[in-house]
């Protein structure tokens, strides 16, 4: 951990976004994670994505649980709302916040322990409820805060740093998310910002549950040559080139042409476009079965399918499903929030 603060000076020619802010304005405090931690790269990618999308920081809420990953929100968007919750309970907190104020952008940050172990039930129900949020798992396959024990996402073939075998099969969170009905499912790698940043932007644009599983090497406990979550292994087995994506904001003109049949464009709710190129014959992310197939066949070969794995273009989010009021509760009038005993009696009468 560095003892000094990141210098306030920045490059004088640093680009500014539509809000007149530089990417430095989207930073948080200095990271206390280990040097070289993949989580810091994901942090940098979130900063870059929010900067490029011209998001005002005060319209974003970042929510997390417990773990190395869940410390990360401190290191980005220091001007946003934040809630560092109980272990595994990030989805509940986000659900509550989202119900109360549907106008904020929700970025949930969790880890493989926080999501695939203690918070697995919470995770499932957040997906099932189509919570409108971006759910990022910083997945390093181990418990870095407690000396690197295997987590539930560590591949069976991947032994510990000291050579201990992993006795159990891994939980694949992307497959789970697709099966539970997530509308947007992607996997990426902390060491590949060219892929990760457009995915984060697309996930934030997506209305509904957007799930991002980001493999993020633990440099201290899970970056040895035999680990399947190491920088070298993921780089050697990443299928990123098979599935590339561009995120185009609705205000931009699309200037790139792709050969017919090899690309597809998907319009997002906010009018922005996802351009998918090098679209594989076997894998069209609009098809859940094909997505599951792609993940499984790659996993069987020891390779990692990354990129946008699945997208549903007609998912309704939780507010649509529940037909909630359109305005956030803090903008509702007192009369609407407390309609009085007559209204209560009417409801009770309906249920008697």
């Amino acid at each position: 951990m560095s003892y000094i603060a990141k210098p306030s000076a920045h490059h004088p020619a640093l680009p500014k976004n539509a809000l007149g802010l530089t990417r430095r304005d989207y930073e948080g405090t200095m990271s206390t994670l280990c040097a070289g931690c993949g989580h810091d790269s994901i942090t940098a990618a979130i900063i870059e994505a929010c900067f490029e999308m011209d998001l005002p920081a005060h319209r974003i809420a970042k929510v997390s649980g417990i773990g190395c990953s869940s410390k990360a929100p401190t290191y980005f968007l220091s001007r946003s709302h934040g809630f560092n919750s109980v272990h595994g309970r990030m989805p509940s907190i986000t659900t509550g916040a989202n119900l109360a104020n549907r106008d904020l952008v929700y970025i949930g940050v969790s880890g493989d322990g926080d999501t695939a172990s203690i918070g697995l039930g919470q995770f499932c129900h957040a997906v099932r409820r189509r919570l409108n949020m971006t759910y990022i798992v910083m997945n390093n396959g181990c418990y870095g805060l407690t000396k690197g024990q295997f987590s539930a996402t560590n591949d069976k073939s991947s032994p510990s740093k000291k050579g201990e075998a992993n006795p159990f099969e891994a939980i694949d969170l992307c497959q789970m998310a697709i099966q539970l009905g997530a509308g947007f499912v992607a996997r990426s790698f902390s060491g590949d910002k060219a892929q990760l940043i457009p995915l984060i932007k697309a996930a934030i644009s997506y209305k509904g549950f957007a799930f991002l599983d980001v493999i993020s090497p633990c440099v201290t406990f899970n970056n040895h040559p035999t680990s399947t979550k190491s920088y070298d292994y993921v780089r050697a087995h990443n299928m990123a080139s098979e599935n590339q994506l561009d995120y185009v904001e609705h205000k931009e003109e699309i200037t790139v042409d792709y050969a017919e049949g090899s690309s597809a464009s998907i319009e997002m709710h906010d009018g922005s476009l996802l351009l998918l190129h090098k679209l594989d014959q076997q894998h069209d992310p609009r098809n859940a079965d094909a997505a599951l197939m792609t993940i499984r066949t790659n996993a069987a070969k020891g390779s990692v399918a990354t990129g946008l794995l699945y997208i549903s273009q007609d998912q309704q989010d939780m507010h649509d499903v529940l037909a909630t009021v359109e305005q956030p509760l803090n903008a509702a009038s007192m009369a609407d929030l407390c309609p009085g005993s007559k209204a209560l009696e009417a409801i009770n009468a309906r249920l008697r």
Partner: protein
Amino acid sequence: MAPTDISNPKYFHKVVDCQWACPTHTPVPEYIRLIAQGRYAAAYMLNWESNVFPGILGRVCDRPCEPACRRGRVEEKPVAICRLKRVAADYKGEIDAFMPEIPAQKNGRRIALIGAGPASLTVARDLLPLGYSCVLFDKDPKAGGLMRTNIPSFRLPATVLDEEVERILGFGVEARFGQKIKSLATLLKDGYDAVFIGTGAPKGKDLDIPGRREAAANIHIGIDWLTSVAFEHVHTVGRRVVVIGGGNTAMDCCRTALRLGGMDVKVTVRSPRRVMKASAWEIEDAEREGVPILDNHAPKAFLVEKGRLKGVRFQKMREVGIDTSGRPRLEPSGEEVVLECDDVLMAIGQENAFPWIERSIGLEFDERSMPKVDRATMMSTRPGVFFGGDAAWGPENIIWAVAHGHQAAISIDRFCCGEEVQARPAPHSSLASQKMGIHEWSYKNDYSAVQRVAVPHADKAQALRNLKVEVELGYDDQLAAREAARCLNCDVQTVFTAPLCIECDACMDICPVDCINFTANDDEAALRQKLRVPARNKAQSLYISDPLKTGRIMAKDEDMCLHCGLCAERCPTSAWDMKKFMYVEAQSAAACLTHHNAYLR
């Protein structure tokens, strides 16, 4: 691009902008750190070894280091390097024990030094520790050259000048002051083993316009007038004074005039203000004392009434575009202005004049009547005769004169030893890790956001009453420490070892000035374009690594690097390290570099 060869000392030398820009390559960040630690004597000695006159230069240096300072690119203002140098001189205490030993047994070589300015004094300082006998001639009664005659004492007190000049004279210089050399041919007959000419550019330019002769009694050549003031031949000036010229001499003239009784003193410049030759800080000082600067004023005639100067008529100029050299092109606007005055001081430039050098002694001159001098060796076309300072290539400044002096001393030593003069001794350099522990460095890497600290000034009314009251009071130790903290330690280099890199992006993500990139290689122009922040400052290098595992390279734009060391702190594999680069320019006498050499690893 090919990987950067960091074994070539030139690469990291250039990253230390201040040291690179300094003609004598003084290790600026090193002495600023010493000042921050309160080790003023050590800071002074590093300076003295390198630039010979720290107390003088700490007040009146042209400071090429400051425009070069990286801090001036990162924020608005550079580190006050010059004023920190003065702090080292002001608080150094006793330093006699650190002086080089002068051998009692001389080596039998006698060197004549003509002109007792900074160039000759530097040659003497560099040669005396080697056992040379130096004979120093000057037309004036005291040594110092233009430092004494042209720089007013309110900028450079005589005590400061005397101390540093006399230190060198005290090394055993044979002084022949008040003695003007009238013939080089005659001097050469005296059997000197080498002759060094450091006579400066002593001839102030004149203006041949109507009225010049008639009003001669009240029209003065600026540098001659300043000399007369310095030697106390002139004590007063008229109430209304017009200074013609826009260089530093003009600024010294107007401020001196204010102190000799001038009530209404104006500076007139032919060109627009933004291209005035004077240093920005000297213009600022003159204006602070209430001197207006009238630009675009071209003098047309001196007005004379009853045989006495009455005023100056100016043609006002107007800018019409830019000429091929990038300077504004001017044409008369038609408007004329008359400034009434009692005295005129002309500071429109200086020239060299060598009427005392015979053209028949094998010493060639060029078409501009300047001696032909070798840029590297300082030797003229007559072997054994050397030039330096303003005498070599026209008016420069003190720090260039010192740099010339060092090179001339090397040449003279080699010449006298029968060695090839063209062969120059290589500089010494070393690169040493500053790591003290995890995230601990032997230098203060925490960035200080402090703005440039202003130097306290003497009370204006009091200063204007007395020519000898120094205007700038200098920093005290507290202010000096604040200003010293602004130095970015550009000599502590970011050194990258490609085989150790795992491409985790940590350094790129943490870099506060976005100078680190991991990218596909390309030619320089394309690479400069595609960095995180395009590298537009071509004066600054790109640091290119060997190819990494993924085939990409690390490309670092040195331009804005804060040398904060966070890349090295966030690197999990120590692929980045912070290493101090020490660069020592060679001199003739190793005895004059003991403090420098102590930093080499």
